């Protein structure tokens, strides 16, 4: 679980957690965190814990190999809200930024 302090305008149903603020407030357990895969540093891995979205979105992602419990690597992130390249099971794929923002990951490895 995480403590949410911030409403994300791009994905209103998800709240963003700001570690610096929680630290200031003295809230422990900063590393238990959920955030979208776009927050990963380029080249880093994390485990997908949730796909936020409807049935069709989850199915589309699933068919491409992006599913819960899978390890995902952020290969590249394009500027100007451009697409994101991720790698799952050794396969790279390009997905739109908004789709990527709905792929929620756990702690980076």
């Amino acid at each position, binding site marked *: 679980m995480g403590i949410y302090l911030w409403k994300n305008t791009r994905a209103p149903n998800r709240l963003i957690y700001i570690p610096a603020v929680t630290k200031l407030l003295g809230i422990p357990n900063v590393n238990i965190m959920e955030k979208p895969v776009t927050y990963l540093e*380029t080249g880093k891995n994390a485990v997908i814990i949730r796909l936020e979205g409807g049935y069709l979105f*989850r*199915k*589309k992602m*699933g*068919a*491409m*190999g992006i*599913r819960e419990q899978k390890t995902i690597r952020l*290969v*590249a*992130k*394009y*500027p*100007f*809200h*451009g*697409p994101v*390249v991720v790698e799952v*099971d*050794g*396969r*790279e*794929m*390009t*997905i*739109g*930024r*908004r*789709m990527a923002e709905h792929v929620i990951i756990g702690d980076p490895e």
Partner: protein
Amino acid sequence: MKKIVLMGNPNVGKSVVFSRLTGANVIASNYPGTTVDFSKGRMCLGKEGHEIIDAPGTYSLEPSNKAEEVALEMFGQADLIINVADATNLERNLYLTLQILEQKKPVILALNMWDEARHTGISIDIKKLEYDLQIPVVPTVALSGEGICDLIGRIDEARSPEKIEPMNESDRWIKIGEIIRNVQQVTHRHHTLRDWISEASIQPLTGFPIALAVIVAALWLVTLIGETLISYIFGPLFTLYTPIAMGISTWLGPGFLQELLIGKLIDGQIDYIQSMGLLTTGIYVPFAMVLPYIIAFYSVLAVFEDSGYLPRLATLTDTIFHRFGMHGFGIIPVFLGLGCNVPGVLAARSLETKKQRFIAATLIAISVPCMAKNAMVFGILGSYGTGYIILVFATLFLVFVISGLILNRIIKGDSPEICLEIPPYRKPDTLTVLKKTWMRIRWFLQEAIPFLFLGVLLINLLYAVGFVEWLGGIFAPVIQGWFGLPKEATTALLVGFLRKDLAVGMLLPLGMSPVQLVIATTLLTIYFPCVGTFAVMFKELGIRDMIKATAFMAGTALVVGGMMRFVLLGI
């Protein structure tokens, strides 16, 4: 006769398997979405003949674009399914396999790219997989033909297992997980040069300079190959041919036949571009001017397609293409359209929504010149200086960008985000590249020659009955008054409907200045697509959208032509 359908995820090699099974050649490449329509072929099994159908790739049995709808339709008609799966990515491929098995049709599974799986350290226990799925499983390497005999031999064993019942999505993934744990072992592998290139070409920082270098190199290579073929092979051939043609001309003597076959002699000599005879211009334009560039373009394109670079290019251009109401995949139809607009418009099927497909098709028809026309532009404007050629392409590029921005605003509908698999780089196989290039050249010859002859015939007939004069008079206000071109250019625009390359050739005898030629050749691309493109747009978009697209083209031609006249010629 049984209908056997090849089903599988995109880019697993269905088309290569199809070619292997039937001996029929179909275009296969290394990017998802190569096949957008079905192809039919035949294969004999014992005494029985079977119909084999190559379907477009699909991730599931619920279609998300037009190409996948075709796949589903083919699935419905099938008596037997050859499920082609990518051995390097078994887990994901099994999703479709399970969906197919739930439909209770006899299935045989081909695990393609078996060699690549081995190299990447993936080992799959075939026996266990057969036991788990209860269908025959055959490892294949379609590119080299390995395992294909085995596949053919075991088609009879295809069956539909009893124990697999329809299930929901999460149950399917659970089942796949069990199977994978049971049959697959992955050993870690080290990074290779290929991974390094792959990484460099997909990172924004290095990817854009690489893309620019690759495209410039490709253009340079196309012109180099094209010009070399013209000056060392096709040009000299026609030098040898000239005395023969002159002989025929003298033998025929003046009259209708000479007019038709040889055409007008200019200073007593044959001018291959201007004479307009069936045996002169009718064969010179396709063979000596266009064919060399067709060969050059398609051999370079084949290397591009087979290497796997196109999906990376699509990723790089995604942000820009969103401004045009498409996503990055839109670059692939545009690339194919540079060869010929017809396959370009067809490739737009892989885009998800109607809006995207409409914009892609319209932009290709309006601003992507095909290689046949480009070759003529190089041939004719080239003699005045490269600057004029650049002017034509720069204008068309601007038209592409501005039309894209406008269409994105005025066309209603969604443009969803990109969702595209990036295949690993593969070394293009020389034989496959040559074969593919040859298929496309043959296609060009079959399509181009009849229409060119028809065009030459039409020109002669129209001149003979005085239609040209009449039509020129009607369109004079637009052509002469607005575009600043001689009114005879109307005929060229009319012929451009049949063959754009011939139409460019027709501009030469009109005695225009280079700048007028620039305006006329640019307009020849914008105003209207050729009949082949028109037909395929009609089929893909339907009549209402086709009319919309045509109106947009005519409007753009008027605006751009007028502006070019204003800027380039003064008033």
